[in-house]
C-alpha cells in the first residue's frame, strides 16, 4: 500500500518538476521536441532507478557501517557519474539501437538534479530498498510526464505568434507555471 502511495505522490501530487523544482534545467533544455523529450525521459528513468538502488546499498553497507555519513554528497555524485559512464559503455556494446535512442542524453544526466536529489531524499525518508526503487522510478516517471506534456505544448507554441521579448524560455517558464497550477489540483487526491 505504501508503495502505491509513494508512486501516486511522486508522479502527480509532489511532481518533482512542478512542485519540488528538481530537474528544471533538462526540463527546459530538451522539451522543445517530442522525440527528444521521450528519449530523455527513458534515459532518466533508467539511470535514476539504478542510481537510487545502488546508492541505497552503498549508504547502508559502507557509509553507515563505517560512520562516514558526512561523505554522502561526494560518494553519491561519484557513483552517479561513474554509473552514467558505465551505462553508456554497456549500451554501446550490447544494444546499439537503444544507445542511438538515448545515448546523447546520457552525459547530460550526471548534472540532472533529480538523480542525486531522489537518492538523498530516499535516505532522508528512511525508505527500505523496495520503497527506494519505487520512489526513484516514480520520480523519474513524473519527470518524463512533465517533459512530454511540456514538449507537446511547446510544439504548438512554435507556430504561434508571440511578442519577441517572450519568445523561447520566458514563455516556456510561464507555461510551466500554468501547468504547475494544474498539477496543484492533484493535491486533494490523497
Amino acid at each position, binding site marked *: 500500500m505504501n508503495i502505491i502511495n509513494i508512486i501516486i505522490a511522486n508522479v502527480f501530487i509532489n511532481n518533482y518538476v512542478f512542485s519540488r523544482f528538481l530537474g528544471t534545467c533538462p526540463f527546459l533544455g530538451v522539451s522543445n521536441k517530442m522525440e527528444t523529450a521521450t528519449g530523455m525521459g527513458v534515459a532518466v528513468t533508467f539511470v535514476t532507478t539504478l542510481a537510487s538502488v545502488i546508492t541505497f546499498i552503498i549508504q547502508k553497507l559502507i557509509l553507515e557501517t563505517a560512520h562516514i555519513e558526512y561523505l554522502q554528497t561526494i560518494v553519491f555524485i561519484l557513483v552517479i557519474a561513474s554509473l552514467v559512464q558505465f551505462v553508456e559503455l554497456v549500451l554501446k556494446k550490447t544494444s546499439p539501437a537503444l544507445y542511438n535512442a538515448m545515448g546523447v542524453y546520457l552525459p547530460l544526466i550526471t548534472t540532472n538534479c533529480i538523480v542525486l*536529489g531522489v537518492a538523498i531524499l530516499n535516505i532522508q525518508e528512511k525508505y527500505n530498498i523496495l520503497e527506494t526503487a519505487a520512489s526513484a522510478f516514480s520520480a523519474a516517471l513524473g519527470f518524463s510526464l512533465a517533459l512530454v506534456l511540456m514538449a507537446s505544448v511547446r510544439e504548438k507554441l512554435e507556430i504561434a505568434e508571440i511578442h519577441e521579448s517572450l519568445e523561447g524560455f520566458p514563455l516556456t517558464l*510561464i507555461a510551466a507555471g500554468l501547468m504547475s497550477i494544474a498539477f*496543484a489540483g492533484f493535491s486533494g487526491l490523497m
Partner: protein
Amino acid sequence: MKISDIFKNGIIKQNPIFVQLIGMCSVLAVSSSLKNSVTMAIAVIGVLVLSNIVISMLRKVTPEKIRIPIFIVVIATFVTLVEMLMKAFMQPMYQALGIFIPLIVVNCIILARAEAFASKNSVFKSALDGVAMGLGYGIAITILGTIREIIGSGSLWGIQLFGEGFQPAALFVAPPGAFILLGILIAIFRTVVVKRFSE
C-alpha cells in the same frame, strides 16, 4: 580579459540565470523568501569562488581525460564543507534549504565555470570570475526572493510590511508563482538590460 569585463560578463552579458538559464532549480525553489534567497546566494558564491580557485591551481596537473570527475570531487568537497558549517551554526536555515544544499554539487553554473573558465585562466582571474558569476546568480535569486516575499506573504526579511487588511497572493510563494515570475523577469532582463549593454 580586463577585470571590468569579467564582472560585466558575469552579472549582465552572461548572467547565469537570466541569460544562460543554467542552475535554475535552486533559484525557483529557494526564492520563496528573501532570507532564504540571500543565504543560498552566499553558499553558491562561496562554493563557486573556492572551487574556481582550486581548479585553476590544479589546471596544469589535471589530465585532460579525467578532468570532469576531478572537478566534481573538488566541487563536492566544498559543498560538503558548506553543508557541515550550516548544520553546525545555522540549523534553522539548514532545515529550510534542505535538499538544495547538497544539490549545489549539480548546479550547472559551477561545473560550467570550472570547465569554461577556471581550467584555462590564472588563479586570480578565476577567483574574480567566481565572484562575478556568483553575483549574477545572487542578484537574480535576490530579486525573485524579494518580489515573491512581498507579493506572496506581504513581508520582507520576515517583517510584516502591510496592515492587517492586506491579502497576500499565496500563488507567488507556491511553485506556480516562481515559474511565472521568473519567466516575466527573464523577458524584462533580456529586453531592457541586455539590449542596453550590447549597444
